[in-house]
């Protein structure tokens, strides 16, 4: 018996299953069918006949469903096509068309992306990491570029540097006044010079005594003397006081907000007194906001010794041109032509320094350096107090960021085109439905824009969360810069989005949109060999970048650890350095003697040496020495160290010829006498001795102040690394004095370091109650020289890791897809007896080939840049074979692991399950 209701509901179920019909349609059609059946029954047909008639006259569900879909998606397009023969322009409305189309594209893209989770995740995550890296680096670059941009007159301020045998950042004190006198373009000059130039000590002790006679003492290092004009030429804003008048008096002092807080809390300190090194009184006339991190010169305390009165009625002109320690800035008229101005310098140099250069048979020249270039574009100069950034590092980081982004874009291109075969049918249908190639390209571009947009949002989140870590990594203290208020940041961000969407989207869009309808719909399998080659090229490129980064990271790591572990020629591991008291008076030397004698009795202390210098620093005293009988032009430069006979023992130096100083044997400077000195091997070489032995007991002439003195070499110590391994050995000369300040180096038994340190501290505080106890360990002090290299290594390492991670993501996506396409093939091969190893080889063959080729291409590039970088170091590693093998191994492991997981997973499936579907 025919059941009409069941027949209808069956038929409707079929309808529901066929594509194109939605809920409303089905109800409407049900109504239609029922009415037709009723109508046919009235004509005398049976239930069954009526049902059959009604459904057959309804027509083929496939094509109606398609039309339904089209009516929903492309309704206007189709109607346009239908009235093609009779088209008249008045019946068109392009606006409805484009917005509806757009909305539809977005829906399609969302559907596609949410249906292909792995694909979307790989793309979005990769892009997000790439973009987050870019953001982090952008803000780093922004910070580096923001140096000295906050000065109102910044564009007109230049630093005048001095070039002789070497390039100095500082200049003669007379340079500023002379330039202003002779050149109308120079509106103002300002000189600033560190306190150590006058006191020979890096730090000074500042004390304040309040009404209750309570004393506060702090040691300060960032203390400079400055011209009054310094306060007005630059824009360091004042909290209290007036920059115009702060330096009217010689005893004026301006301090930073932080220093003011330390002494006075939140009170206004104007008019208060601070005492330097327990002797000199200053009155506070101004408090400036802390110098921002992005200033090339950083200071906490300024005073104005330059005022002529400070020297007791008139400037002593002999100082003007013989003491090139003063950083000299000039403010120019905005219209000045710099080249023309610099052309006038040689005459001024000749006028003031002519005699001297002639006598020394040397050249001197002044150079202008724009204020804003000082931080990033300074050439290697002596006498810089701050460590400057390097434009090369900036470029380098930008390059890495771009590389990571490119890797992520390549992932997108690769995965999208690889997946295109799956989408061929979609494209085919849409083409049949009347979509033009242009529309399809537009849609795929929209899809890539959406992926990029989501990625950028995630990137922002990653960026915000990782910013503190990144800043720590890159050594940025960003407090004074606001990235988000910069228009260029948003432009760059927008550009990244547009470029990413377009660059990564355009190729897949073209590939996808150019499928031929007929072959696609017929179900032909196709793959263009050109497309596969292109994909391989892209993957190869990713491998190349990875190889370069791995090899680079390895080299940086090896060089840094080489520098930290190489034998320096002295023992740095068991030496504690104590700073001798800053507040010094006539009794200090005898107190020091008592202090040292006490210490020597302590069992864990092996030896103690006071000295003017210690290893790990650039020695500022640099003078000329020569053999007796030679002309002054034969001078060779040498650094002087004042110490005593204990220095050699304490630092474990090796005497290779002659002898050490004896106890109580001191170098005496006298006009007729001979000063006994110790030199190092480098100095004997500079003096022209064939070997150190030859130099022993030889007489030399050495300069100190403006005088030549006669010296006798009593012994030669072996070369040791006075400075980091970036630098060559320095030429050194040692004097023996009863006392040398400020360093007291104490050689300890390492086993008892904690107790020893405690003992030394207590004794120090007891002996010098008015001083702060300051100490450090020699090895830390020396290693501090590598801070920037270590940091570079870390930054390099982290970014390499990120890049490799993003590339691995892409590899993962690509292999996942590749193997999923070949699931059946794997099943058949397994049925035919293939082992997992054979399958692995089959799938990894192509990738291994690519990795090897990428290595071959990338390594010469790595070698070239690596060699270049290593040339910065006087003592450096060889680029060993590991550098070339390591990237290969790492990439092979990553690739094999990725492919193995996929292959094994797939080959574990029972072939029957895979194959029974067809």
């Amino acid at each position, binding site marked *: 018996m025919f059941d009409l209701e069941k027949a209808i509901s069956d038929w409707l179920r079929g309808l529901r299953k066929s594509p194109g019909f939605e809920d409303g349609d089905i109800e409407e059609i049900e*109504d239609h069918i029922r009415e037709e059946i009723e109508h046919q029954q009235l004509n005398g047909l049976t239930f069954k006949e009526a049902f059959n008639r009604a459904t057959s006259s309804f*027509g083929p*569900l496939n094509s*109606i469903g398609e039309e339904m879909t089209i009516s*929903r998606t492309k309704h206007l397009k189709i109607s346009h096509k239908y009235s093609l*023969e009779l088209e008249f322009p008045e019946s068109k409305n392009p606006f409805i068309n484009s917005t509806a189309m757009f909305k539809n594209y977005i829906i399609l893209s969302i559907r596609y992306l949410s249906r292909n989770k792995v694909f979307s995740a790989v793309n979005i995550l990769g892009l997000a990491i790439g973009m987050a890296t870019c953001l982090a680096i952008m803000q780093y670059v922004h910070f580096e570029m923001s140096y000295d941009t906050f000065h109102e007159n910044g564009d007109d301020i230049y630093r005048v540097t001095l070039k002789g045998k070497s390039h100095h950042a500082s200049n003669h004190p007379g340079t500023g006044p002379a330039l202003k006198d002779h050149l109308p373009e120079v509106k103002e000059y300002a000189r600033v010079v560190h306190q150590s130039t006058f006191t020979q000590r890096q730090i000074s002790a500042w004390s304040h005594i309040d009404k209750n006679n309570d004393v506060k003492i702090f040691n300060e290092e960032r203390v400079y003397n400055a011209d009054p004009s310094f306060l007005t030429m630059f824009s360091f804003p004042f909290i209290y006081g007036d920059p115009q008048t702060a330096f009217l008096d010689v005893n004026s002092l301006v301090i930073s907000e932080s220093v003011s807080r330390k002494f006075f809390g939140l009170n206004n300190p104007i008019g208060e007194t601070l005492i330097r090194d327990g002797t000199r009184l200053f009155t506070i006339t101004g408090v400036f906001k802390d110098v921002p991190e992005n200033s090339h010169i950083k200071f906490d305390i300024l005073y104005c010794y330059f005022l002529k009165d400070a020297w007791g009625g008139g400037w002593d002109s002999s100082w003007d041109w013989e003491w090139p320690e003063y950083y000299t800035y000039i403010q120019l008229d905005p219209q000045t032509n710099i080249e023309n101005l610099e052309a006038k310098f040689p005459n001024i140099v000749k006028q003031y320094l002519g005699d001297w250069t002639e006598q020394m048979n040397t050249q001197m020249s002044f150079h202008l350096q724009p204020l804003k270039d000082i931080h990033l574009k300074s050439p290697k100069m002596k006498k810089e107090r701050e460590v400057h950034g390097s434009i090369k590092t900036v470029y380098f980081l930008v390059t890495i960021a771009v590389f990571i982004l490119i890797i992520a874009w390549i992932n997108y291109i690769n995965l999208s085109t690889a997946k295109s075969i799956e989408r061929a049918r979609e494209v085919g249908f849409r083409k049949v439905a009347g979509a033009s190639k242009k529309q399809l390209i537009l849609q795929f571009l929209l899809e890539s824009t959406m992926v990029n947009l989501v990625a950028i949002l995630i990137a922002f989140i990653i960026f915000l969360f990782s910013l503190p870590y990144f800043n720590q990594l890159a050594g940025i203290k960003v407090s004074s810069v606001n990235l988000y208020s910069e228009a260029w940041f948003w432009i760059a961000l927008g550009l990244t989005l547009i470029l990413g969407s377009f660059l990564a989207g355009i190729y897949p869009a073209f590939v996808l949109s150019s499928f031929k309808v007929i072959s696609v719909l017929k179900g032909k399998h196709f793959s263009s060999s050109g497309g596969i080659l292109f994909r391989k090229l892209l993957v190869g490129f990713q491998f190349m970048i990875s190889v370069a980064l791995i090899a680079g990271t390895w080299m940086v790591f090896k060089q840094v650890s080489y520098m930290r572990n190489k034998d320096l020629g002295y023992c740095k591991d068991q030496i504690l350095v104590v700073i001798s008291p800053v507040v010094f008076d006539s009794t200090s030397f005898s107190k020091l003697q008592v202090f040292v004698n006490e210490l020597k009795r302590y069992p864990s202390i092996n030896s103690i040496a006071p000295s003017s210098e210690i290893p790990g620093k650039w020695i500022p005293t640099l003078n000329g020495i020569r053999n007796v009988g030679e002309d002054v032009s034969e001078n060779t430069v040498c650094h002087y160290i004042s110490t005593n006979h204990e220095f050699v023992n304490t630092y474990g130096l090796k005497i290779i010829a002659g002898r050490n100083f004896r106890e109580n044997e001191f170098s005496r400077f006298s006009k007729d006498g001979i000063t006994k000195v110790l030199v190092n091997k480098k100095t004997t070489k500079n003096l022209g001795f064939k070997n150190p032995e030859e130099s022993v007991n030889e007489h030399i002439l050495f300069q100190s102040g403006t005088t030549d003195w006669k010296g006798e070499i009593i012994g030669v110590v072996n070369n040791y690394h006075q400075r980091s391994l970036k630098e060559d050995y320095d030429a050194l000369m040692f004097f023996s004095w009863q006392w040398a300040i400020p360093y007291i180096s104490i050689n300890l038994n390492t086993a008892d370091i904690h107790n020893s340190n405690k003992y030394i501290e207590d004794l120090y505080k007891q002996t010098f109650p008015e001083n702060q106890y300051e100490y450090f360990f020699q090895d830390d002090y020396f290693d501090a020289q590598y801070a920037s290299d270590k940091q570079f290594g870390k930054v390099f390492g982290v970014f390499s890791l990120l890049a490799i991670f993003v590339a691995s993501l892409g590899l993962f996506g690509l292999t996942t897809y590749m193997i999923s396409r070949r699931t059946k093939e794997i099943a058949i091969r397994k049925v035919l007896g293939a082992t997992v190893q054979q399958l692995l080889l089959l799938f990894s063959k192509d990738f291994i080939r690519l990795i090897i080729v990428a290595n071959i291409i990338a390594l010469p590039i790595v070698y070239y840049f690596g060699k270049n970088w290593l040339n910065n170091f006087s003592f450096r590693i060889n680029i060993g074979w590991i550098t070339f093998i390591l990237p290969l191994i790492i990439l092979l492991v990553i690739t094999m692991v990725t492919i193995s997981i996929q292959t094994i997973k797939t080959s574990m499936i029972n072939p029957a399950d895979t194959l029974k579907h067809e």
Partner: protein
Amino acid sequence: MMASKGLMAATTKPMILSILQEGKNYGYKIIQRVKEISGGSLHWSDGMLYPVLHRLEKEGFISSEWIIGDLDRKRKYYAITEAGKAELHAEKESWMKAHAILTQLWDLKPSI
């Protein structure tokens, strides 16, 4: 006479609009009306009408509403909109224009 597919597709729109100008109606009845008028000379499967209706609705030429009719069956009624009337007017002009051109070309006498 059987019309070509293209012609049929092109004529559905003015036909549906014309039928709906006579008054609100639902799918089945509209098809019946078309069959009735064309006397079977225009023939397509019944179902093909629905996509066209939906399209016209999307384009704003017709509107629809669900009405619960006899036997508690939900039925979707269509009605012509103002835009639909204007569109029909434009279609009419086009068709008349085309008709005039073809009449001239084929030198047909208007039959009664």
